[in-house]
């Protein structure tokens, strides 16, 4: 039995957990390749026109995997906490969206469903999925705990690498974006490349102590309901003193981001900040110009400040 993991959405947040879990249980899997033109084309064809860009990309990855695996892996999340810790409804719906879109293909889907508000925790969800895979409780628990450990280690490595970047003398730009946007070859990678070419260090808001960030988000917005956005907004509060500027990156037309990024722009005044909406259209000339001018402004402001502190004015 071979499981196909689409490289989209939750993959970027949970892939270490998933991959280790399957490996520990001796289950074969493949991950779809990095997003390419063909994947985008297929996804756009299958998805509803108005659907958000990452969901079209996700659909493209699903399309790629269908002939190559026995089971598609499409987990679902409804809530991650008991009080206002919801996720975008896309993550609640994606299982049924895929299932209906490809109904004629009679897909076999492997899933888990997390809904902490209704007492379906991650552990419970994985136990259920493990059982479906024909494993016994001891095997599943062992695999899950090893996977959790691997996840923790991977996060620590990411955090440490980011720490090194934060110590750099280059300009440091905090990029606030969902991992499935900023790490996608088509949506976020071009933006990261441009920033690197401008000699900036890219600090990712998604690499953060998530629990701490969820708490810190309250300093910026009190009623923010989406867990993933809380982590990003909290990261701003955590990293703000260590970076020179902040870029909020969203993909078209993201529901939660449309409100949250507007709120952040209105409330956060401590560092230069811009908000970008990426629509996945080809050509990065416009993006380059915007990023260049943003970086220029930061540089000028920084120089002025340094002159003041050096007493040259």
């Amino acid at each position, binding site marked *: 039995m071979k499981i196909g993991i689409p490289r989209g959405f939750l993959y970027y947040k949970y892939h270490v957990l998933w991959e280790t879990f399957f490996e520990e249980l001796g289950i074969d899997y493949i991950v779809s390749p990095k997003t390419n033109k063909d994947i985008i084309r297929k996804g756009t064809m299958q998805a509803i026109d108005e659907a958000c860009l990452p969901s079209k990309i996700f659909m493209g990855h699903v399309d790629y995997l269908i002939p190559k695996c026995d089971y598609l892996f499409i987990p679902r999340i409804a809530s991650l906490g*008991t009080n206002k810790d919801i996720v975008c409804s896309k993550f609640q719906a994606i299982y*049924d969206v895929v299932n*209906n879109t490809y109904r004629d293909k009679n897909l076999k889907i492997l899933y888990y469903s997390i809904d902490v508000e209704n007492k379906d925790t991650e552990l419970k969800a994985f136990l259920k999925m493990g059982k479906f895979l024909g494993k016994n409780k001891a095997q599943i628990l062992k695999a899950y705990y090893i996977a959790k450990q691997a996840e923790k280690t991977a996060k620590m490595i990411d955090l440490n690498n980011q720490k090194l970047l934060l110590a750099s003398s280059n300009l440091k730009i905090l990029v606030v974006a969902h991992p499935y946007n900023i790490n996608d070859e088509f949506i976020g990678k071009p933006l990261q490349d441009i920033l690197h070419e401008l000699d900036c260090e890219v600090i990712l808001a998604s690499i953060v102590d998530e629990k701490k960030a969820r708490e810190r988000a309250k300093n910026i917005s009190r*009623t923010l309901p989406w867990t993933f956005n809380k982590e990003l907004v909290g990261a701003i509060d955590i990293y703000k003193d260590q970076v020179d500027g902040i870029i909020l990156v969203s993909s078209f037309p993201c529901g939660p981001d*449309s*409100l949250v990024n507007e*709120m952040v722009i209105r409330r956060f005044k401590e560092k230069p900040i811009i908000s970008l909406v990426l629509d996945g259209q080809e050509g990065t000339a416009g993006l380059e110009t915007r990023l260049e001018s943003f970086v220029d402004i930061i540089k000028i402001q920084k120089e002025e400040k340094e002159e003041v502190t050096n007493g040259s004015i």
Partner: protein
Amino acid sequence: MAVSKVNFPRLGSYNVAVAHIITKGLDCEYVDAPPITKKTIELGAKYSPDFVCTPFKYQLGGYIEAIEAGADTLIQVGGACRLGYYGELHEQILKDLGYHVKFVNMANANFNKPLTFYEEFKKINPNMNVKKVAQATLLAIKMVEVIDKVEDFIRENVGFEVVEGSFQKLHEDFLDDLKDVSDKKELAIIYKLYMRKFKKLEVKKVKNPLKVGIIGEYYTIMDEYSNHYMEKELAKKGIIIERWMNISNTIFHNYAKEVKQSIKKYARFDMGATAMYTIKKAIDYAKEGCDGIIHVKSFGCTPEIDTMPVLQKISEDYKIPIIYFSFDTQTSDVGINTRIEAFYDMIMMRKEEKEK
């Protein structure tokens, strides 16, 4: 202390009931926002983030107009989707615009701690009498149920009115009289009286008329300005309109569990916000023999977008045409009417074909 002048975002005809809670329950003044016009939308769109869903823009425009009409206290209720975060951003935008108003945001309250709701209500009137608020709320709930029943009747019959505008005129009178109701008994009398009047209105029903079900996103489906008076347009063509989605059916009655069960064939999970109801009603209308289904939503409404692949399958399975409308502040009447026209022609031809 001066009495608060309270506004609540307009939704369908329900403001009569909201006004009752505010005036009779909370002893405050109720400031109705002027009817939504193009200006409301322009105001809302101007100060809202570009690609936020349309109801946010309508409501922001409404708040501004209400403030200009004298409101000093605004209420936002929140909801299951993006709505849950409207309040805090509305408040921030109004503040940045320089408006000094009290903003009561139910998203500040916590369902696990009922007392937090009381705390929010107290912002409207610190000296409120809880018993009075409770009584007024109970009557307001009954009012909403009556409004919904009356409007169901209108949707079924208005397409066949003999005197153009007769239903609308009577509906306006009904809402007007509803404002003065102060207890359950009076409400029952008004309800009976108007139902009798509605039934007396002259209608000329054709044999076997076209029937269309409307499904979709909560706000856009209930706010006639947002959906460009779609129901009225359909009625002009002599169509019976079915629309299950209203406040009584979704808030006062909780059908979630049975709905979830009944749509298992199409959706294993709850797909968020009102997605389950959209799917359930599409199936119901198809089974009931409606001639077509109209799906409405504001542009970018994720839960409703996600129902669309499901609706396409329902359309296939039951061989029922479904047309999809997505509204934003740029939507033009002409575009909508052309599509409704085409849809009407299509379902009409199908019906004639079938009857042969």
